């Protein structure tokens, strides 16, 4: 695949989310700048949608887990696995976010919102954990 097409697909977020062939769907547009570098940027543009700006999550008929002061973050592989593979209502980001972006955002979350872990996750760690990217279907 040439780099232009690859870039276009990435911008459209098609790596993990192709235009659904059957669902009521907005169409092909909806580009998202894919140049998010820092963990803070990834958090703001992706995670904050559900986990909230303060990392405290939400509560309705079900719960969006808080990341603030969450003991499940003690081992970095746990949040990395959740971001890669999804959990419950949360989609997988394997293939949508790069290993670098996942490492950065996991490190960001583990050092903010009342969390102060000192060990850092690397992109290589994430790569080692990542399985094949699921294929979205109807």
């Amino acid at each position, binding site marked *: 695949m040439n780099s232009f*097409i690859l870039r*276009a697909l990435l*911008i*459209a*977020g098609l790596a993990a*989310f192709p*235009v*659904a*062939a*059957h*669902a*009521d*769907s*907005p*169409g*092909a*547009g*909806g*580009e*998202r700048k894919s140049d998010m570098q820092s963990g803070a940027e990834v958090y*703001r*543009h*992706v*995670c*904050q*949608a*559900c986990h*909230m*700006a303060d990392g*405290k999550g*939400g*509560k*309705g*008929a*079900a*719960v*969006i887990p808080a990341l603030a002061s969450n003991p499940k973050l003690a081992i970095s592989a746990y949040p990395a696995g959740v971001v890669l593979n*999804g959990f*419950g*209502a*949360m*989609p*997988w980001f394997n293939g*949508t976010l790069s290993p670098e972006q996942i490492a950065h955002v996991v490190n960001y979350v583990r050092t903010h919102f009342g969390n102060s872990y000192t060990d850092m996750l690397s992109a290589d760690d994430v790569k080692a954990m990542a399985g094949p990217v*699921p*294929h*979205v*279907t*109807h």
Partner: protein
Amino acid sequence: MASQTRRQLLTALGLAGGTAALYQAMTVMGHAADSRFSGPPVLSGARKGSKVLVLGAGLAGMLAAYELRKAGYSVRILEYQDRPGGRNWTLRGGDRVVEMGTPVQKVGFSPGNYINPGPWRIPYHHRALLHYCKQFGVPLEPFIQLNYNAFVHSAEAFGGKPMRYRDVACDFTGVVAELLAKSIDGHTLDQELTQDDRAQLKEAMRGWGLLDENLRYTSSVHTSTRRGWERRPGGGPDGAPVPSQLLDRHDLFKPGMWQSLAFFMNYEMQTTMFQPVGGVDMIGKGFAKQVADLITMHARVTRIAQDQQGVRVTWEHTASGKVSEETADWCVCTIPLSVLSQIDVQVAPAMKAAIGAVPYTSHIKMGLEFKRRFWEQDDDIYGGISFTSGEISQVSYPSYGYHSSGPGVLLGAYTKNMAGLDIAGMSPAERIETGLAQGSVLHPQYRKEFSNGVAVAWSRIPWSLGCCAIWSEESRKQHYRTLTEMDGRIVLAGEHASYLGCWQEGALLSSLDAITRLHKRAQEA
């Protein structure tokens, strides 16, 4: 045709032409058509006193309740919200949007204007939904899906200038036809096609693509009969039209262009499309009219247990906090998996795994009210959809109230995936600002004419935590069948338990299938 004669004819056809011919003949005669829906289920003879508890008063739940009561069951519905309909939902002036973690939005639309944050359009072949709309007296009107005069915009094409769908569609067709005709003349298809085929295809390309005698696609009176004019035909001595200029063909091949053309080719997106008159929640209200007496609102289900005798559901009244238990012989659970995966449900481990294996989409819809319908008055756009590569993904114009001189509401964003998450993380004011900034690229009138807006982020909706189930090839294979099978006395239903995900039709087909199997099981028990 008398049924005996008809069967004989079909048998004869089957023998002569095989099953394909038989199928085609049956389709023409109105049988074996493509929808799975061939009429409402004929269920009857439920055991006296047999009780079904339905969880969720969305379309799937209300349809299950309606049909099961008709079959003789005693039915009750528990609903978390304070209104029936679920994701079948319309926002009008005075309504409030309550999300988790977002300041409450109060809708400021003028009377008669509305936006449908969830489902909004009905393909002509969604027969189950059309059937029940008719049966429950829900009037429908055309939903304008494809509008040749709407815009297609990509930051990567034509210097970021929006193009009319018509110009893109016509020129893409013409250029592809020209290239194919050239490749026939260049003998590159000699191996693929016979000489006769090549001659016919070349003629087809000439006619289909509006090519000239030299097989070129050029600006002319001929091509302008399709793509429109620089100066439109008029009356009188100066009425002669001036042909329009073609678009730069290189930019036609950019993804945002052809993807917008391909969008309308999708089976579920083809015209004719309908919408309920006055807002999509007229469907939910139509269903609710049939089963209103069965629904208990404000009920948050906390536990679903079962044994050989029946099901026992624990629920909490969201206003008073009072905890109650409800027992029944059977349970139809239509709670979205995003929520159900966090409820203590007593089902087999494989079912439990399936419930937890399906993530949900992060759709965004934005309703923007403007002081006047400039898209009609200035741009000649009546209904339909403009596409953009911006995060808002599309702008859709109202398929009602044409030519009204009052304020109009358009769909200022309909997007999902990464763009949906980005917008969901914004404050309501930031979301609206994003809609205005990106929509202004299509319509510079936006800033001057804007009045008010509302933006719904489905991933923050407290009763669904997302809009639609996301299936992968892998999860379909591993979990789908388990998810749809009866687990003891419990069966799941909803768009998530169908192959028509993210459509109301999927919810209805799933519901009808689930209750048909439930009834069969109950009869056997």
